[in-house]
């Protein structure tokens, strides 16, 4: 089952006179349930690719089909709905709301969902439980370690059972021990529930958890191998 079809995807950033080509004709297919690691030096276009795949931005050329439908066919509220229901994001900088508890942070996507409010509590608690921070549920991000913060972010990313989780260098701000724990969590999510996971990382040791490795350079795919 194809989840993603990318053909000749291009992204050019234009600021005044200068043009920056971030993606220069990228094509690949992703099946449901894959665990892909994307690697490459900074400026190779991997973050841009992830943002396009996550409907956070629009391409300037080529085509992107998600679940058989192209991004052009969606309106702005529909894109918001897809981001809400089908895609979970994990960021390098955690992006948790300060002055809100772990519980409230994991609850955030539910505000924008169609899930009836009576079902919220069990969803939130089971997500927090799955990442092993139930004992921190009332704490605010300021009181958590980096590893704990990222686990909250992961719980938030799958609280609505998305098809796909996009993780942009989730271990970038963590030490190797915590980093490995986070990747293991993602691996578990992939194996247990068959969620598609696309992970950007700089570390070969973490990339080996994935089943497929895409290497990028200068906005192009350099290699795409199954491991």
């Amino acid at each position: 089952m194809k989840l993603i079809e990318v053909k000749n995807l291009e992204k050019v950033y234009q600021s005044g006179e200068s043009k920056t080509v971030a993606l220069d004709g990228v094509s690949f297919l992703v099946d449901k349930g894959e665990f892909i690691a994307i690697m490459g030096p900074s400026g190779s276009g991997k973050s841009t690719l992830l943002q396009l795949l996550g409907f956070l931005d629009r391409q300037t050329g080529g085509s992107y089909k998600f679940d058989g439908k192209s991004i052009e066919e969606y309106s702005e509220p529909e894109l918001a709905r897809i981001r809400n229901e089908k895609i979970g994001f994990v960021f390098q900088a955690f992006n948790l709301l300060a002055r809100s508890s772990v519980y409230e942070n994991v609850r955030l996507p539910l505000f924008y969902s169609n899930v009836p409010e009576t079902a919220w509590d069990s969803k939130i608690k089971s997500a927090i439980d799955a990442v092993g921070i139930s004992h921190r549920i009332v704490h605010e991000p300021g009181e958590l370690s980096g590893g704990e913060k990222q686990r909250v972010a992961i719980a938030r990313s799958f609280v609505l059972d998305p098809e796909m989780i996009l993780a942009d260098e989730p271990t970038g701000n963590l030490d190797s021990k915590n980093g490995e724990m986070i990747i293991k969590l993602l691996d578990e999510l992939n194996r247990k529930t068959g969620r598609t996971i696309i992970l950007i990382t700089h570390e070969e040791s973490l990339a080996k958890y994935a089943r497929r490795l895409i290497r990028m350079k200068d906005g192009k795919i350099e290699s795409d191998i199954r491991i």
Partner: protein
Amino acid sequence: MTTRHLIKTALTALKAHKSRSFLTILGIVIGITAIILVMSIGQGAQDLILSQIQGLGSRTIVVIPGREPSGPSDVAQIFSDSLKEKDLALISRKENVPNAEKIMPIVFGGESSAYGNETYRATVLGASADVFDVFDIYPAGGVPFSESDVRGRQAYAVIGSKVKDELFGGSEAIGERIKIKEKNFRVVGVLPKKGQVSFFNFDEIVLVPYPLSQDSLFGIKYFHRFIISADAEKNIARVVEDLQATLRNSHGITDPKKDDFFVQTQEDLAARIGIITNILTLLLVSVAAISLIVGGIGIMNIMLVAVTERTREIGLRKALGAANRDILQQFLLEAVILTCVGGILGILTGALLAFGVSLILSQALGLSWTFSFPISGALIGFLVSGIIGLAFGIYPARKASQKNPIDALRYE
């Protein structure tokens, strides 16, 4: 996002910056306070004036010499000598004005009255014996003068309570002689404390029979007013018409536009005063409204800062599934909550201040002032503050909603 969660989210954001939120709404608080204060005082003033007019009785009709003033340039017309003895005789005839129950001519003016070494500048009111019934005021000590005293040109005076205090202090006034313009009057009665009734303050008045005051005090052959009471409320219009017809006939006037007198009912007067106080209130309210606009601009300014500060949060919310509309609603609601809270605080402060003013006016100045809370003003004030939140919140909220999630997330 459900409304309940929208409100909760907005409140959380506002509570995170309590002092800033408070300073932001100060402009709205002051604006609404001013509006409530002005409206309350305006209403109080109107009530006060109307209650004084009503002291005359609703069946009372006043004929005033001169053309009805229609503007400031007509002021001179107020001083006119068009109401003569002949007119009084004509309107007093039953066949001319059948529904008139009482007809009383009056003359008045400020004159010095003296007793021994004491002098006091009182309002001398020359009237017929009906004056006591018409103004519903009777001597507390002594007796009123009678119609035969009036016709007999008796030099009798009934004096107000303040006149009595000023001239006689604690000693007995009845039977004493006071001097007004070199003419001696015998005090036959002293009025109780009454205050303002219609155009006269009866505490500062000296009542004397009118024919005598006309020639001995004022040296005039005309009247300042005719005060007529209709026999029934339903006949007021009829009496007005009869008065007009009789006086026009007497003055040889065919075109009502050229009338040298005008007839005023208590209803006319109340309506006129209502219009004047309403215009004044409106004027002051619109001045106060300017501060609301200033307050609104302050809100817009702070909301713009908040949007920039929270760019990252906006990006995150969008990545997690917030549509543009959700972000717009969130920021708009924050602005509306701010202004509505400002409105409520303003209404409370305004009411409190107006109550304070009413206390000062009634206690310290002795006016019969009643505090009135302008309910319509409070509703309008609340509504207006909500509208200001919408009007000045929409621009920052739109700006927030249109942020690109990527740029927003990248923002440091």
